[in-house]
């Protein structure tokens, strides 16, 4: 009977797998269906997103108001206004002082492991390789490198003009399914081995209304950029600070360029590095040319965020206020890192207790087992020594 069931289950799964293999590639074809809207407590529209919104997700609006999703009904969300989000002080931008905001002073791995401080390196990749812009590419999704790669290449060139070395990994991660982030994780891992100061995942949004992204900056038709931070990872606090720093610099240099910050469920591979960020360059209904007009501005923003203005003035001449802000950011980063360590300790203790409980049934036997093993590990310094001396 059991073998028959196994055979049936096997046949069923293989049939499903074969069927699934010949389905059209999962893509952004159903973008309209996946559109969800968030409103505030008064019913006023806040934002849209291509994808679900979950309770606990957070949103920092263009005017830096923090909202937290309180309830979700039929996929649409009601957000609670938390208040004005404290944004980093970037007044050092006005005086044009060299202010290495992230690159050389913050005690986080991506920035301070380099032996050569003068080296500036940013890594980029594209998780959703198919993403394209309908007005320019004729479709929102292509079976290969979509229009998003043109944006990534343009952004790379603009960053290079700022004197930054950029590695753009043009690997594709098709199909556009739940495995895409796992495949791009491999790309991100390879890129991180080069020790970049930041790693950027280039995307475009799936909101149908192009007016959400279309804007005019310095008299030029451009596209806004949304920043996405995953809250389900140990680097979440540092990633969020990084996103806020980018927005603060953008708000100062190019008001309106950064649309908002969405802090949602998931990791977006941002658990791999503290300076990991996902940038949504426009949406599928906007023209790619408009988006390409934004890449140079965004490159200057990212460059200033990571390395400070390129004025050539000495780092030691930075203002006391700027130093204080950097130290505050460093403290927040340290807090994020120590949070990860605490999480690790809790995970280890929980793992030991759960497995010891399952194996011994709890009580005295569990305590004895843990004590005996601790004693063995520490040569009897800690833990309970076995009475028979055999362990």
């Amino acid at each position, binding site marked *: 009977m059991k073998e028959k069931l196994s055979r049936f*289950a096997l046949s069923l799964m293989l049939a499903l*797998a074969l069927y699934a*293999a010949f389905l059209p590639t999962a893509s952004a074809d159903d973008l309209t269906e996946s559109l969800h809207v968030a409103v505030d407590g008064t019913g006023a529209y806040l934002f849209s997103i291509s994808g679900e919104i979950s309770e606990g997700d957070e949103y920092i609006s263009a005017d830096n108001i923090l909202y937290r999703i309180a309830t979700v009904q039929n996929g649409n969300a009601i957000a609670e206004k938390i208040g004005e989000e404290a944004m980093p002080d970037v007044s050092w931008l006005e005086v044009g002082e060299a202010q290495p905001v992230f690159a050389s002073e913050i005690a986080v791995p991506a920035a301070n492991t380099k032996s050569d401080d003068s080296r500036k390196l940013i890594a980029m990749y594209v998780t959703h390789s198919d993403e394209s812009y309908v007005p320019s590419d004729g479709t929102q999704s292509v079976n290969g490198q979509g229009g998003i790669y043109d944006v990534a290449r343009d952004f790379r060139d603009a960053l290079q003009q700022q004197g930054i070395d950029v590695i753009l990994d043009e690997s594709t991660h098709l199909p556009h399914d739940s495995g895409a982030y796992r495949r791009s994780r491999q790309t991100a891992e390879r890129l991180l081995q080069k020790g970049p100061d930041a790693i950027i995942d280039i995307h475009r949004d799936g909101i149908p209304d192009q007016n959400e992204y279309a804007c005019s900056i310095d008299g030029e038709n451009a596209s806004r950029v949304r920043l996405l931070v995953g809250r389900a990872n140990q680097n979440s606090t540092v990633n969020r600070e990084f996103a806020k720093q980018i927005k603060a610099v953008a708000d100062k240099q190019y008001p309106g360029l950064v649309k908002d910050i969405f802090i*949602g469920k998931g990791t977006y591979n941002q658990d791999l590095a503290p300076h990991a960020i996902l940038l949504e360059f426009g949406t599928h209904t906007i023209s790619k040319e408009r988006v390409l007009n934004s890449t140079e501005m965004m490159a200057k923003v990212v460059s200033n965020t990571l390395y400070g203005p390129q004025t050539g003035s000495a780092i030691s001449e930075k203002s006391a206020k700027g130093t204080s802000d950097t130290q505050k950011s460093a403290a927040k980063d340290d807090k994020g890192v120590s949070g990860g360590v605490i999480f690790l300790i809790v995970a280890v203790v929980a793992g030991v207790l759960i497995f010891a409980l*399952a194996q011994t049934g709890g009580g005295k036997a569990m305590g004895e087992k843990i004590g005996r093993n601790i004693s063995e590990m520490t040569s009897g310094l800690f833990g309970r020594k076995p009475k028979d001396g055999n362990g």
Partner: protein
Amino acid sequence: MSLGMILLVVLTLLILFGVLQRVLDRMALTDRQALFLVALIFVGGWLPDLRLGMVSLNIGGALVPFGVCVYLFFHAGTGKERIRCLIASVLAAAVIYVVSLFFPADPVTMPFDPMILYGLCGGIIAWLMGRSRRSAFIAGVLGVILADAATGVVNWSRGINQMLYLGGAGALDAVVLSGVTAVMLCELAGEIAERIARGRTNGSTLQGGQRA
């Protein structure tokens, strides 16, 4: 620190604490061998990939776990268990492939990390098919490798010239995490089920309760 790194550190400490001793016994591994393998996975993950045409094989992320699978396969108790291992691996691969396609594509919409889901699939299937820790590890690892290979083949058949990376994220890849998650789930579920069974027998001899 990433979820994968946390899982591997927890695994290492569980081995050091001796909590996984029984699991390792059933997998025909000593504590030292297990720790050596964890170290090999870490170090191998940083070595250059092996390239075979359009396939790129990470040493720590795929080759070492695959080697462990081969070792476990030949240490499987009976011919039947070996067959169960293979069936569980193919089933796990099919489930992982299908889940990848139908699970929401955006992390915002994912109920939880798919990398953990793959391990859960392998662990549940292996446990249902024989309550074997060895099968669980093999199903977890081979399930992801076979599912990735299937994705690569489908891409190539559609004319997409995309490199197939197996275990490309090294120690943090789903291949390793899936194997570890599967065996830990199988051990946990197995211990709880066996404890319940022992409780029901009221101390009488348990027949066929424990498996490898």
